[in-house]
């Protein structure tokens, strides 16, 4: 059954976590020297599967075959020993160590007791030259941006002599032209005989790069297709992934009114040391309008949101419903009707070790139904939590469980439900559907559209360009803290938008 032509073969893999089955009977064959994509929606079990293949987690059942030989991995070093390497979705780099230290860590070359630094440098430079991944080795990693960090990660893997390279959602943080560069590098690696396992949920990209595609749905493999010999479309893959068409974020007719809800003039955020992270920004949002902000992460989006919420100090004026709120505290701004769906829900929007009903209060603890004057009102807060749970379809046995027990999608539905309560006038939403399953994604989009129709003004930040283009009424592109272009969501393509985001070209 197994043969040595397969770089990796997984047979009957099962993995259970408390309350969830992450993988059930997964079977996978990856031929040598190919790019094999694994697709599936968020939470389908792709990452768990790869952690099993890389020895970070142990399967409850099943076999792993590498080049036809069965292997048991107790830790990543066992996987590394047989030539498997992994680039994680969230980079695994130590900021305060140098590039060199990050690369050699765990597989150091030694000279007696000492680290052989020059030997390691020689080896790395050789590999770097071969694949075009040259980097200054003595700099601290904290100095590098996302693209370079990914190159460091790939160098790490190659340094260990890997011939099977697992890439977990490698394009999630890249803009289109960086994706092109990555794909070029992957093709070079492939021509050197290296096998690549490519995990993604972006179907267009997968169809471009992969020789074979395996689809995973709710923890099991549902099939493998070969886009080189079969005609496969993104719609076909989506059908396999979720059993139906993927939801689209597209909005119908415009609901934009001429009532200005938010009017920002000359907003500037200055970092320690005088650098302007947000540089004299102006914009307006009307009732019923969704304004999308496109940009590569780290170009000032986080600071912009913090400034609008009064978390970060800023200069310039912010007018909200004809009132100058520039000097208002965060609390006063939120009390006056600014709702907030933050980027990192676990860190910024939830108290993980507190029950759902206490999470219902968060951000609204000074308003009914959560409090009355100085005193909390737990009873009405609980009642309202029950309402949110049923209206927003939060799957939970009770409102007394801790937020940490819910899945990402359900956590996000609770947050959206909370923020839509109390008739907000403005919603500031960052990546509202990041990391949630398609069901929750569709539901959240529906809620956003409904609120927009009811006159809510929305500031939307998202790395998912389809979501951004689909939902927004107007688009602005942010680069190094400045708005560098406007785009019309009706006509702009993700590619054009991506180019504008890196300053490579103007958006339509």
């Amino acid at each position, binding site marked *: 059954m197994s043969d040595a032509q397969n770089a990796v073969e997984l047979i009957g893999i099962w993995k259970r976590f408390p309350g*969830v089955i992450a993988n059930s009977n997964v079977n996978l064959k990856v031929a040598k020297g190919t790019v094999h994509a694994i697709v599936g929606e968020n939470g389908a079990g792709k990452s768990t599967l790869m952690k099993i293949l890389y020895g970070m987690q142990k399967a409850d059942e099943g076999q792993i075959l590498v080049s036809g030989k069965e292997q048991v991995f107790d830790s990543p070093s066992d996987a590394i020993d047989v030539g498997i390497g992994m680039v994680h979705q969230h980079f695994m780099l130590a900021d305060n160590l140098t590039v060199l230290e990050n690369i050699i860590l765990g597989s150091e070359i030694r000279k007696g007791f000492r680290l052989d630094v020059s030997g390691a440098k020689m080896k790395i430079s050789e590999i770097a030259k071969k694949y075009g991944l040259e980097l200054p080795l003595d700099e601290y990693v904290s100095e590098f941006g996302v693209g370079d960090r990914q190159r460091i990660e790939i160098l790490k893997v190659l340094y260990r002599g890997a011939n099977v390279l697992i890439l977990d959602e490698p394009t999630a943080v890249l803009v289109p032209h960086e994706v092109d560069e990555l794909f070029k590098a992957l093709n070079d690696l492939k021509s050197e005989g290296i096998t690549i396992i490519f995990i993604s949920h972006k179907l267009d990209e997968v169809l471009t790069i992969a020789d074979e595609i395996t689809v995973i749905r709710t923890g099991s493999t549902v099939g493998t297709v070969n886009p080189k010999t079969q005609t496969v479309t993104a719609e076909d893959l989506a059908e396999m992934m979720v059993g139906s068409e993927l939801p689209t974020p597209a909005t119908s007719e415009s609901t934009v009114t001429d009532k200005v809800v938010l009017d920002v003039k000359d907003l500037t955020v200055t970092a320690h040391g005088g650098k302007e992270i947000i540089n004299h920004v102006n914009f307006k949002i009307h009732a019923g309008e969704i304004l999308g902000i496109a940009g590569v992460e780290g170009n000032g989006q986080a600071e912009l949101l913090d400034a609008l919420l009064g978390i970060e100090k800023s200069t310039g004026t912010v007018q909200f419903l004809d009132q100058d709120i520039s000097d208002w505290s*965060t*609390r006063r701004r939120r009390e006056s009707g600014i709702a907030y769906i933050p980027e990192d829900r676990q860190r910024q929007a939830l108290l993980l070790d507190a029950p759902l009903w206490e999470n219902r209060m968060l951000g609204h*603890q000074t308003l009914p139904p959560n409090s009355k004057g100085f005193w909390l009102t737990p009873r009405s807060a609980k009642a309202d939590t029950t309402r949110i749970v049923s209206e927003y379809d939060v799957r939970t046995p009770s409102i007394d469980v801790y937020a940490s027990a819910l899945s990402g999608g359900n956590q996000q539905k609770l947050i959206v439900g909370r923020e839509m309560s109390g008739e907000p006038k403005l919603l500031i939403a960052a990546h509202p559907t990041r990391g949630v399953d398609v069901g929750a994604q569709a539901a959240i989009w529906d809620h956003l559209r409904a609120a927009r129709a009811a006159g809510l003004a929305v500031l939307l930040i998202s790395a998912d360009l389809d979501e951004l283009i689909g939902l927004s009424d107007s688009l602005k592109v942010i680069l190094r803290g400045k708005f560098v272009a406007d785009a019309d969501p009706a006509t702009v393509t993700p590619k054009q938008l991506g180019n504008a985001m890196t300053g490579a070209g103007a958006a339509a």
Partner: protein
Amino acid sequence: MKLRKLVDVLAAPLLAIVFSLVVTGVILASFGANIFEVFSRMFDYGTSTRSLTLITNTATTYYLSAVAVAIGFKMNIFNIGVNGQYRLAAMTAAAVAGWIAMPGPLSAVAAILVAMFVGALWAGIAAWLKVVRGISEVISTIMLNYLAIGVISYVIVQTGIGTEVKLNVRGTPKIQEGARLAGYALIDPKVKVYGFFFIAIAVGIIYWVVLNRTRFGYDLRASGLSPSAATASGVNSKRMVVYSMLASGAIAGLVGLPDLLGKEFSYTLNFPANYGFTGIAVALLGRNNPIGIAFGALLWAFLDISSQILDLEGVPREIVTIMQGVIVLSVVVAYELVRRNRVRTQQQNVGKALAAATTNEGSK
């Protein structure tokens, strides 16, 4: 459900206490002591009316100290500085009550207010350093403890505030009768329960109400659970640090007063010095919960008082300190294990609920 919850709450401390009994039992046995004899002597001695009164009084002090620590813990602030705060506070209060002539009760009230103020002030330095200069309160409060010792020694030894209260013992002048809270002989006819016992109970109630029933308490707990989420929810995190540190320091300021107003009546250089660390231990044992802390304080006081008999038995009474150390160490481990277990069960329950929901939908 209620019973389960109770089991959940009690499992960890009981486990820790049993474990520490085993450890101390093994230590005692290895030195040839009769374990049951030792423990039963302790129990007999500790349950006499005299001992019970002393336990109540000691527990009063421990309770206040633990509440002071717990206020910080609730928002992930580690006030190791209770020692310095209460000593400085008690000295100042003693000096004020001892030197300034006021009608008795007024003098007592003044002592309490001054103590709270000084405690808050000393803790406030650490708060300021944390908020403005980003210095961990763990280090700064430790340094402030030693600084307080220096200040106290200077005031008592070098200035006119200190006088010779006993032969070769310098301290503040004795507080007048009327300003004392010597207490009431409730349990034993000869020993009085400190008047401060009732104040400690009030402090516990206020602590619970503020924490669980007010917006301020919510902001405080939110800041402890997730500073970033609290900030996004509109809590001014720096201000919260200052408030909680001030509150913690104010309560810490009370820690020396049960002894001062109930027994010592003068602050000398021999004033009890280590209530702060006991407070940390008791707060950990009681999980920052006002009722849990009360049990913790009573247990600690019981161990301290009942062990006094042991020296007569030829067993060093410090065995109790070992016991307390083992309890603290094992209770934090036990709480962590219980927490993990709870998270796992909850995830399983959510998983089950989800699975049930999906099958229902399928059968529709």
